[in-house]
């Protein structure tokens, strides 16, 4: 018989498999080729796509296909302790894993020697910033008319002591009792349901991880529904509240 977990009720009252209220909208930056905003609870992300466009310098170009370049950053006032403007090691890493996730679905064979730039910025953070950023980026790429085999939907699942939870917020990230918090950001492709992004920090058994991934995939379906609706409504925007 499993030990009882110390985390039996979520701090904001949600069910264990419930995501925070989501708002999504495309076309938020008119001068860009594609753009989108994605908000999960208190975390807000904006993504802007510029491209395909000429890539400088020449030696970075790929003569066989276009290059996807993702840049993730948090605005200085997005968190309690101000973040100095400019790239950090954390933001560089998140940029790279996000780029790999989106690379799994975009098809830039038709645009050799070009670059498609994806800029992700976080104006307000309440955990789950990289997954919110990915969700926005996926919509922005579609909005920019970039050829994509399918969409990417992302969500952070996790564990607080022994309880598996979906859409970990800041308070839960800071949970210290028992086994503490485990944070598992993941991203799933919309059609083939494959995992394009997966990271983990914390402590979890293989059995628990299997459950977490299953719950995560379901939550990503919730996200996909909102992304689809936002794209179908153009720049009108949509809420799932």
């Amino acid at each position, binding site marked *: 018989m499993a030990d009882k977990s110390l985390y039996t009720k979520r701090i904001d009252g949600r069910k264990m498999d419930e995501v925070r209220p989501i708002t999504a909208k495309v076309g938020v930056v008119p001068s860009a080729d594609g753009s989108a905003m994605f908000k999960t609870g208190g975390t807000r992300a904006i993504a802007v796509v510029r491209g395909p466009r000429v890539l400088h310098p020449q030696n970075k170009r790929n003569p066989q296909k276009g290059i996807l370049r993702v840049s993730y950053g948090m605005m200085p006032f997005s968190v309690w302790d101000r973040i100095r403007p400019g790239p950090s090691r954390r933001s560089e890493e998140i940029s790279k894993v996000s780029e790999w996730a989106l690379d799994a679905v975009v098809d830039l064979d038709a645009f050799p*020697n070009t670059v498609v730039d994806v800029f992700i910025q976080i104006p307000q953070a309440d955990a789950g910033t990289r997954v919110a950023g990915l969700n926005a980026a996926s919509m922005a790429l579609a909005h920019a008319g970039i050829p994509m085999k399918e969409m990417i939907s992302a969500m952070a699942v996790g564990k607080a002591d022994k309880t598996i939870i979906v859409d970990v917020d800041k308070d839960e990230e800071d949970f210290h009792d028992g086994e503490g918090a485990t944070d598992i950001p993941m991203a799933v492709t919309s059609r083939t349901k494959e995992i394009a992004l997966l990271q983990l920090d914390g402590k979890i058994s293989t059995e628990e991880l299997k459950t977490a991934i299953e719950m995560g995939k379901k939550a990503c379906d919730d996200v996909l529904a909102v992304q689809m609706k936002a794209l179908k409504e153009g720049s009108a925007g949509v809420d799932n509240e």
Partner: protein
Amino acid sequence: MEKEKRTLVIPGETIVSGNSYLPGDGTYRDGEDVVAAKYGISEVSDKQVRVIPVSGAYFPRRGNTVIGTVIDVTFNGWLIDFGGSANAFLSLNEVHRYVNRNELNDFLDIGDSAVVKVWDVKAKGIDVSMKMRGFGKIEGGMLFKVNPNKVPRVIGREGSMVRLIRGATGVNLTVGQNGVVWVKADSIEKELNAKKIIDFVVANATMSGLTEKTEDFIKELGLKVEEKAEIIEENTDTEEVKEEKK
């Protein structure tokens, strides 16, 4: 000819299912399904499936008319920026008159604008030409940019919308497939009126009864509704117009 309902689709979405369907532009086959590979409006006609983009950058195609600006003069031609993913190259062999290698700048200088035709799209770049009638350097008038995906509406069926705009405002008008529009008239007011009408068409491009709505808008501006055929140099790129169904 059976035509299924047009819907807005997103990448990864199944448009139709069945091996008799042929995946066209913006789609791919996944087993039995024909799936959207782009965000846009799906169209199924005669078992051909395609997705027409509604947003995003312009992708040049052979035969397109584009309007761009010279950004560099090389030893044997000019580099033209038309807002695309690569710059276009205009060889000095592709202009309608003889240009001496030493007078390239005199013919077309950096900052000059031109209407050109795309004749080759390669991995290395895009080649354009202005040999044909109706293409060449443009002088005077003004340029503005619209969503390139709405260009077919701005041109209209067989150029009908362009004729309407011309009749209402008296402008000379060329619409590039890259979304750059050139208007020229004897007064700036006429050029700005043409821009207002075009912006209206672009904003309402997906609505039905667009022609009637545009005619109402023209009347609201205090202008007259009549179609006017083209007189001087311009090009309605009739292959593209015929391809586009309302």
